[in-house]
């Protein structure tokens, strides 16, 4: 516990990132409750519940939008779905990345070269048009399928990050020591290597979450994907296509964008913070 506090004390970036991200998650988790009270049990996406384009007031802190929906409620719903897809797809992508990176990093040789080439190819090739075409032609896209498709194109980045770490861990003498103490390959993987790269798995995960939320938002922005999932990207799409900008209601567009940016920034701050804390060169100085 003391060690954890020391970590936060050492890296303000990590602290700020964790605080922002946790607040966003709490908002998303409380969304059903908050919206239930605010809208008396009506759905936040229901059209024509209020007048259109009401200015911000006590009742509607962010006003209402072109279809007469409460902006704050829509925002919270959007945040929930964006985070949900991000975390689902991010977890999937990280899982693929960890499995492939472990195999590559631990086995080495030709297998490693093969997996690296595939990962690099996916990383290099612009995946967005492919993603868009698939989502366009698949008839029924639900949240899980969408996450899976996005995850398929997002694991390469985190796999690169994780593989480099495993490859460096593999060479450590303590792995050899474990081997001459009679550890099996699996035991070495889980007991010796895994604990040391947990922070890096998180780094890979947060890369994946950022990547998948970005991809999802981009898809929804142009109107692709399941219409019944009102994520933040979908919200921006509604706002743009209903002429919100032309009529000068900038707040309606700015607020979902701010939420998205806050998510990305907090994840990145956590990454940078973790790197500061777990970077071996710094670690010697801090002693944590």
């Amino acid at each position, binding site marked *: 516990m003391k060690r954890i506090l020391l970590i936060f004390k050492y890296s303000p970036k990590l602290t700020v990132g964790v605080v922002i991200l946790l607040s966003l998650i709490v908002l998303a988790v409380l969304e059903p409750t908050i919206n239930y009270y605010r809208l008396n049990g009506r759905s936040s996406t229901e059209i024509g519940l209020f007048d259109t384009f009401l200015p911000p007031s006590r009742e509607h802190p962010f006003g209402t939008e072109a279809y007469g929906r409460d902006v704050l409620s829509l925002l919270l719903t959007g945040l929930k779905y964006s985070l949900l897809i991000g975390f689902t797809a991010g977890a999937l992508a990280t899982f693929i990345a960890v499995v492939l990176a472990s195999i590559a990093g631990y086995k080495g*040789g*030709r297998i490693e*070269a*093969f997996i*690296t*080439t595939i990962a690099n190819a996916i990383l290099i090739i612009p995946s967005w048009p492919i993603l868009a075409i698939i989502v366009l032609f698949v008839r029924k896209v639900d949240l899980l399928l969408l996450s899976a498709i996005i995850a398929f194109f997002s694991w390469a980045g985190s796999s690169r990050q994780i593989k480099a770490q495993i490859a460096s861990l593999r060479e*450590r*003498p*303590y792995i*050899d*020591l*474990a*081997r*001459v*103490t*009679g*550890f099996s390959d699996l035991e070495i993987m889980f007991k*010796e290597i895994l*604990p*040391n790269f947990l922070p890096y798995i998180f780094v890979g995960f947060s890369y994946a979450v950022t990547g998948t939320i970005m991809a999802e938002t981009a898809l929804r922005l142009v109107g692709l994907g399941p219409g019944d999932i009102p994520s933040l990207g979908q919200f921006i799409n509604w706002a743009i296509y209903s002429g919100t900008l032309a009529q000068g209601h900038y707040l309606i567009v700015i607020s979902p964008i701010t939420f998205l940016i806050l998510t990305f920034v907090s994840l990145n701050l956590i990454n940078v913070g973790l790197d500061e804390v777990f970077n071996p060169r710094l*670690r*010697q100085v801090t*002693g944590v």
Partner: protein
Amino acid sequence: MDGNLLTFQNVSKIFRRVGFGFLGKAVVQALKDVSFSLSSEPEVLALVGESGSGKSTICRLILGLEEPTSGEILYKGKSISEWLKNNKKDYIREVQIIFQDPYEVYNPFYRVDRVLWMAIQKFNIASGDEASKLIYESLEAVGLRPREILGRYPHQLSGGERQRIMLSRIYLIKPKLLVADEPVSMLDASLRAIFLDHLRNFKDLGISTLYITHDLNTAYYIADRIMIIYSGRILERGPTEDVIKNPLHPYTKMLINSIPVPDPNKRWQDRVVIDVAKLQKLSSKELVSGCPFYNRCQFAMDICEKNFPSVKRINNQEVNCFLYE
């Protein structure tokens, strides 16, 4: 059964580095026709060579972390691959190692005493109270105070302490054969002597030691016998006193002559002469059939370039050099 603890029979090791792509791979001959043995009587055998001479490869071969390209390594008359296939537990219990780096050998995630507990657990040495008693005992045996060690994380201890915990691990396991891979090269001079004394005392526990080092000084201090390895070939071997006082191979002579003497009244009288151009040519490691020292040897003959001499026995020493044919 030849009655030896460990026997290397014409062991060669070639590393092929596989690069991805369609062309290009590197071949490095790490060991060539290496033969030696450790007798079943406990002894300390020093393997002395420069960095890149193949001494670490020998260490990894013995531990079964690598397999020889050709030749055989016998432990108690049975080949290592056979041991690892049928009696892996017994083998690793009997053949243990101390690594060079006292920092990286600890998993930073765990407390230091884990290496001791794991050894006890994996080798079924003891259980319960007896186990902790044994750990206390083994730590004290190498001059550490258990209370200052147990429960600490690796970064909280100094290099000397950590390396000594490795010693206590060996004391705990009591293997038959210990491979010590440059165990003192990262320790300060003032701590080296104490460490080496412990290592030497292991002989009384029935432990044979293969002491791998680049430093003739410490080898002279601790070893019963010395082997000189150069570029994957063993060039000379014999009882320590004989090899140091009466070196036969030109390479051994050069080594001994190059070691600084800690006495300002006995400074070097000669100067090193090195043909830099020749050295540069040598740096590319190819599969050479002749004597690997040919390029740097001042007595080099034509025959040395293409052929490698067989072992010649002179008194107690064995040397591979055409000068003694």
